[in-house]
């Protein structure tokens, strides 16, 4: 009943997690979980690229205009909040919103380009914020499964937290939001050291050697801390830790075989939603051990 009273939240999938893209299981599981415990998400009509990666590295105005167009569309639909589960998107949207707020001329240029006004009163949140703000009680209420001794290393990476002065989310050096959510699902968060280290991000294609070293450090640290799985909330982190894992194992001659799951998938399992409906069959590293822990 409580959920119905809340206003709908604008859902911005972005390119990485939308249906048919490389990390669609993140998007699928986010939507599946919200169907179950709310809050109601409504996709922003006619959304476009957030301006991450190539755009913001080459043309500041263009990347800002791309982001702001999405925000303006959400404003026009009357949303008070936008959920951008991909941290690249949430970070770009928040930074663009701040940039136009701080620079009158940029704001005007961007508004002229997108032919829409931008008020800047929509709040952009990441997936951890959504769960923490709206769903902690619901998870406790509707939880059907408690995993048996499932130790999870919560991995934040960089984009959820940095730059801290702009994003203002959690402690940039020692964040704990994901741990709280993992605890709510009944899994056990492990104390480990590299939860905010860089995974190498987009350099996975251009400097694979660097990324392999960084991701190896992360996997090694998580496994040594006793983790059975790594939880993430970023498609980029997921790709580097999951997709590259076999290659890392080969390069550094150590077997990890550690599933990397989205935090939304973990919540879904606790709610007893089918593993396939959560996209758990779409990972490179088999997630069976995690699914079975919830059996």
């Amino acid at each position, binding site marked *: 009943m409580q959920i119905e009273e809340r206003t709908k939240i604008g859902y911005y999938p972005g390119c990485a997690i939308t249906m048919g893209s490389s990390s669609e299981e993140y998007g699928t599981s986010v939507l599946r979980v919200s169907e179950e415990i709310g809050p109601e998400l409504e996709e922003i009509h006619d959304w476009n690229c957030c301006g991450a990666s190539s755009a913001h590295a080459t043309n500041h105005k263009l990347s800002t205009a791309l982001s702001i167009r999405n925000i303006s569309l959400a404003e026009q639909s009357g949303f008070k909040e936008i959920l951008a589960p991909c941290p690249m998107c949430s970070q770009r949207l928040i930074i663009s919103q701040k940039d136009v707020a701080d620079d009158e001329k940029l704001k005007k240029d961007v508004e002229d380009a997108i032919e829409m006004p931008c008020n800047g009163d929509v709040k952009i949140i990441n997936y951890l914020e959504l769960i923490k703000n709206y769903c902690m009680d619901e998870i406790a209420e509707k939880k059907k499964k408690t995993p048996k001794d499932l130790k999870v290393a919560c991995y934040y990476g960089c984009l959820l937290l940095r730059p801290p002065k702009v994003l203002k989310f959690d402690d940039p050096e020692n964040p704990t939001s994901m741990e709280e959510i993992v605890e709510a699902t009944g899994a056990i968060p492990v104390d480990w*050291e590299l939860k905010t*280290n860089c995974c190498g991000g987009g350099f996975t294609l251009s400097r694979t050697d660097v990324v392999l070293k960084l991701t190896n450090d992360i996997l090694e640290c998580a496994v040594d801390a006793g983790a059975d799985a790594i939880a993430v909330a970023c498609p980029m982190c997921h790709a580097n830790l999951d997709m590259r894992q076999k290659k890392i194992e080969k390069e550094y001659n150590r077997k990890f075989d550690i599933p990397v799951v989205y935090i939304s998938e973990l919540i879904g399992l606790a709610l007893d939603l089918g593993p396939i409906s959560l996209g758990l069959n779409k990972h490179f590293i088999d997630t069976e051990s995690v699914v079975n822990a919830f059996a």
Partner: protein
Amino acid sequence: MGNKKIGVFVCHCGTNISATVDVEKVAEETKKNNPGVSYTTTYKYMCSDPGQKLLRDKIKEEGLDGVVVAACSPKMHEHTFRNAAIKTGLNPYHVEISNIREQCSWVHPEIPVGTEKSTDLVRMMTEKVRKDKSLNAIKVPVTKRALVIGGGIAGIQAALDIADGGHEVIMVEREASIGGHMAQLSETFPTLDCSQCIMTPKMVEAAQNDNITMHTWSEIESVDGYIGNFTVKIRKKARSVDLDLCTGCSSCWQVCPCSKIKSEFDMGLGNRTAIYIPFPQAIPSKPVIDRENCILFKDARKKNIKPNDSKVCRKCIDACPIAPVKAIDYNQEDEIIEVKVGAIIVATGYKELEDGLYGEYGGGKYEDVITGLQFERLASASGPTEGVIKRPSDGKEPEIVVFIQCVGSRDPAKGCSYCSKTCCMYTAKHTMLYKHKVHHGHAFVFYIDIRCAGKGYEEFSQRAIEEEGATYLRGRVSRVYKKGEKLVVLGADTLTGSVVEIEADMVVLASAMKAQDDAMEIAQKLSIQYDKDKFLSEIHPKLKPVESSSAGIFLAGTCQGPKDIPETVAQAGAAASKVLALLSSDELEREPVVARVDRQLPPVFSTCIGCFYCQKVCPYSAIESEDIKARDGSVIKTVARVNEGLCQGCGLCAATCRSKSIELDGFNDEQIYAEINAVEFN
């Protein structure tokens, strides 16, 4: 007064003025165009002995009763020329300086412009001189006793110097012992002499000096009054131990069952009991009960009874051999005492930056990431490991130690914008102490710059690098994290342009020196100024480095800004000499440039309406209220009164006064308007 005979003396200041100002023309024009100016001349150096003689001679010969010296800033030589005038019998407040150097000759390269502006400036000042009245120095009696706040090296040095000069000193220290941070240090740079060996004798000397009265475990409650006449209330916090009865025999703290309290003196690396002395060489060597942690006091708080009625634990009082009255008194309460002093030295010291601020270095999270002061305790023979370098987590000897400089310092984004000045030197010292004790160990230092300016300092840091083999890496550390038993330090070496990863056993953070948490409160109690970093402000960074913004209050040591021991001792000595000079006479002469509230004959009494806006704006708490009373004692009117001892002559009250009842002597409205009206606007 309009018929004053005014003399104008234009100084060349070598070529400082005469290069861009035609001084002869200024003198000529001034004489020609200003009726009342009866004499003008120029001289190469007015401030020199012949210059001053010229001034004195002409005052007498020409019968001058007003003088304008057109020269440098009044900050430089107003005093000089006024003193010269006194010798001729002329009241010094008829001598004014027209500054034609700082904002005139130095900034206008063209001679016609400089000359015209100088002539204008001189004319303005001659108009002011016409309105000048004689003022007499204000005499204030002096209480020949000094207060020193803080019992670290700065406070001890200042107290000893004043006491040796023959005056009484009251020293207030908030901790249970004097000694401050210096007592915590192991060895001191650049000579590596043991801090305890040079500090503890000074502590003893201070304790045994008949002129010094020490109040430890005490804090300043309030300060009233003014230079020469301060009234200070001191809160003597309940020690629970009678200092007169106690002999410091140690029986009590040996039996105390609360033995797992982190020792503040050992920076949390060692433990102490609830009844304790901070360190074995403490002065006074008499304990204090930590009421927060003592189980007896905890029980009394819980049951809401008097501590002495609690029966939970009475081991210390039972062990006390003093009879018939025990030296321990659980019911002791805070006591407020009042003292009168003539001068105050503030030597409240610094604190080390909290280690939690740099989460990426794991400070506060990993036991083996320690601060500079913690390393001092590890290396100290009286420390928790008796000087053996053992890492806190498992007591193992660390084989690789990484020292990170500028943690908090020179980091405006997160910490402090300033340089803490001592860290380059103490880190070099730490690497040496470490290498002397762990011969096969390796010390790495990450630095931004190596700043070792001081006698023997550069040689000392070079010795650490060249002879003792510390590896210095120029770059910042991004992160420290734990990997098994090791601490992985990720940093950059910007000289080779490479990323450095060191698996260390221990990490030492050269944490910034910060102002005490309550520095603002003490500044407010004393009505003195502090800077953006809450360090107490000297009134002039070069020429008045130990004077605070309030007369009679002086600064010593790190409460004023980061500094090392030699500098602190020098500053403490300087502050003491200022105090000795102040206490050397029975009466003080104060410059009579003070504000005055108007008084009139009845029935008006005063035009002051008693709004006390002046009180709100006065930075020196110099405005008091006064009741004007009839003969029968009934109050006719409550008006403002300026305390001449406190007033610094800033003029804020005069500018604020709504009924124009306050005037600043020497700068009254008539004088200022005369100056303004003398400006010819084109």
